[in-house]
């Protein structure tokens, strides 16, 4: 992501003005990014081998039937023409319908958003709740047993792909001890406990395979730097407790990089959900992308990619808005 900030050299902007400026600027960014992403994905999907006609007509399709269907779906038109038609429909709020199922792309995407959103939120919370205290303590006890153990574990986890952790969790917690379900999804609206049981394993697998060890390593490193600053020595000299210094003087300035990374990680986690949702049989966006890609359901795929692009831009805009709160020296450039 891009972070347009200056530190300390300008007079601090009023928070309200800063937010509005950032929103205006991000609105332009959003449109530009969406155009680029949609064009890029259109080009890439066009390069994919395979033909959606066979997913609709089956193996018995004759070349004449395939040609007729191409005409019906406008697949026989040039790429720029198809892209233009898609953009025109998009402006009218129509993302098209699935080639295979006939379901509206908007419905297909929106009915899967809650699952993916919940999975990512819970994973992020797990990662932050576990990584932040561990990183603070490891930095505070730098070089000691806990620091070494935690650093080793983080190194191991960051090397483990999500599917390895997912399979291991399923074997241990679903098959061996039968504590949690291996597959399936209970919506929050159906049952709170059922939902919690169905989200725990996938969320842990997603959190442990990337965000948690990454947050730990970054925050530990920043905390070690911060703890060597003069103002920390001053705080110690004033007799403030270690706990107070860590929480009030060291953590906040060390968190800027962590917040940036959190925004970036959400984009990466959207990619991770493709694997996790397939393994745990969850009805989310990642699963939709997998099945649409396999069937060359390009219209649905395009809609899902567009949504992810919008989500990434919005998340990073939100991250930018958090900087001035964390560190008053940081303000957005109002250009």
């Amino acid at each position: 992501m891009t972070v347009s900030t200056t530190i300390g050299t300008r007079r601090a902007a009023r928070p309200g003005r800063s937010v509005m400026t950032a929103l205006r600027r991000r609105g332009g960014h959003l449109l530009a990014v969406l155009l680029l992403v949609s064009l890029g994905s259109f080009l890439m999907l066009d390069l994919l081998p395979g033909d959606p006609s066979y997913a609709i007509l089956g193996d018995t399709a004759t070349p004449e039937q395939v040609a007729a269907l191409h005409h019906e779906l406008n697949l026989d038109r040039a790429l720029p023409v198809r892209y233009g038609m898609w953009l025109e429909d998009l402006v009218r709020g129509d993302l098209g319908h699935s080639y295979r199922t006939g379901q509206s792309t908007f419905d297909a995407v929106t009915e899967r958003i809650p699952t993916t959103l919940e999975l990512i939120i819970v994973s992020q919370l797990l990662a932050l709740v576990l990584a932040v205290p561990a990183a603070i303590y490891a930095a505070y006890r730098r070089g000691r047993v806990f620091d070494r153990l935690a650093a080793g574990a983080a190194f191991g986890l960051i090397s483990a792909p999500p599917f390895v952790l997912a399979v291991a969790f399923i074997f241990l917690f679903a098959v061996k001890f039968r504590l949690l379900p291996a597959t399936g999804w209970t919506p929050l609206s159906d049952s709170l406990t059922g939902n919690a049981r169905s989200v725990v394993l996938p969320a842990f697998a997603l959190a442990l395979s990337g965000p948690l060890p990454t947050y730990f390593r970054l925050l530990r490193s920043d905390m070690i730097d911060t703890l060597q600053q003069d103002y920390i020595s001053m705080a110690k000299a004033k007799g403030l407790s270690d706990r107070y210094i860590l929480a009030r003087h060291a953590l906040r300035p060390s968190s800027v990089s962590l917040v940036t990374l959190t925004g970036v990680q959400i984009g990466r986690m959207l990619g991770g959900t493709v694997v996790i949702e397939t393994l745990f049989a969850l009805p989310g966006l990642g699963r939709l992308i997998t099945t649409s890609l396999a069937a060359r359901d390009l219209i649905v795929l395009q809609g899902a990619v567009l949504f992810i692009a919008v989500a990434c831009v919005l998340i990073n805009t939100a991250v930018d808005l958090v900087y001035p709160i964390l560190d008053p020296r940081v303000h957005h450039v109002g250009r």
Partner: protein
Amino acid sequence: MQGGDLTVGTSGELVSFDPAKISGFGTLVHPLLAVYDTLLRLNADGTVRPNMAASMKPSTDFTMWTMQLNAGIRFSDGSVLDAAAVKANIDRHLDKSVKSQSASLLAGVTEMTIEDPTTITFHLSSPDVAFDSLFTLQPGLIAAPSTLVAGYDLDSKPIGAGPFVLQSWQRDSEMKLSRNTDYWQSGLPYLDTLTFRPVPDTLTRVSSLKSGDIQLSSFIDQTSIDSATDDKDLAVDAEYGNGGDVLFLNSRSGPLSDLRVRTALAQGLDLDAMNQVLFGGKMNVANGPFTTDSPYYVADNGYPTFDVSAAKAAIDAYQSETGQKVSLELAVNNVPDRIQLAQLLQSMWQAIDVEITITPLDPAEVSARFSSANFQIAVRNIPTFTEPEPLLSRWFYGSSPLNFSGLVSPQLDAAFDSGRTSSDSADRVSAYQEVSRQLATTLPVLWYAHGVRGYAHSVKLTLGPDNLQNVLWYEEIGFTS
């Protein structure tokens, strides 16, 4: 016992409840069996038995078939399943604008006559002794006529006369069905609810069975079946069936248009080594489409046996005659077991001086490459079948759109014609044994392994007496405790 909630794990999500949009009867389309039922049903020996249709009788020359429906069967919306409803469904399959995947199966139907509310006659363009078996497949799934009108969402709002009724469906999550209280067979179904849950990853599906998240699933690979067999809480019904994995040889042009080269490739296959390397000694070796327990099986059908010297001599003869080295492309699905197979074939055929280039294909590309004849050798599965017509003939009959090899053999076509038109069972056996011989000697494909299909399920579940390898009748399934 009566009652209970069953969750079935499937390998993927159902595309649609529209009978025109499905092909085959794999577990992916089992929800349609539960919602629609079928007009007729197939026995394990290939014979047809009544179901929603009480009988189906041919004319003496097999160009007309008359179906008598059971009276009083109603769709779940209360409307009557009668001859008009059957005709409306078949008409829709034949309507080109619908693009039904069953249209080719019904291509021989020239006219339908409604004799009375429960009787319909099908007029065919040519004799077909196995025409009734079509109604054990997709054309036997009858949707309420009110759902066949333009604008109705038949993809996700089916109305059938089957044992279950769709309650809710969240794609890629769960499909819940409940008992049809007006099901035409009294006392059935046993289950209160039936849930289909797509679990695409095979390993996870086995784990879900073991953990009890799902109580029934089908598998088509030996590893999963072995894994389920090892669990004392699970029962496994698995068997090998007709069909299986084959290597399609595109005989339209190039070296593969020469029977000597095709025969040499067959002679270069060391099936024992393949069995040990790829199947852990459990491969059901195939010499043709039929398994050893099929009446159509012929042990000495002429399929080439492993003979490196003879293969090498044939390739040498071809090369000296044409001046060209035999170099072929092998197209496989881009999945680990197929790649492993391709590498093994590459090494085996290297020993007979045939150079193989492996091309991994994305599954979506396979159909396009096959249909456009843009391949030389390709690995493909011929799904398990009981009745050879049309599920075997469509792959090899000269004019069939699925004749991917492009080989046209008048003798083979004649054997299929004989099997399709002969009313005498001994003649049919003789005809399909001739099919086996013709396939073994003309070699449009190389056979190596019959497919395995197994159902693994909780030991507390009974599947009923009439289930076939690729079809489960859900009204017969129940819990024992």
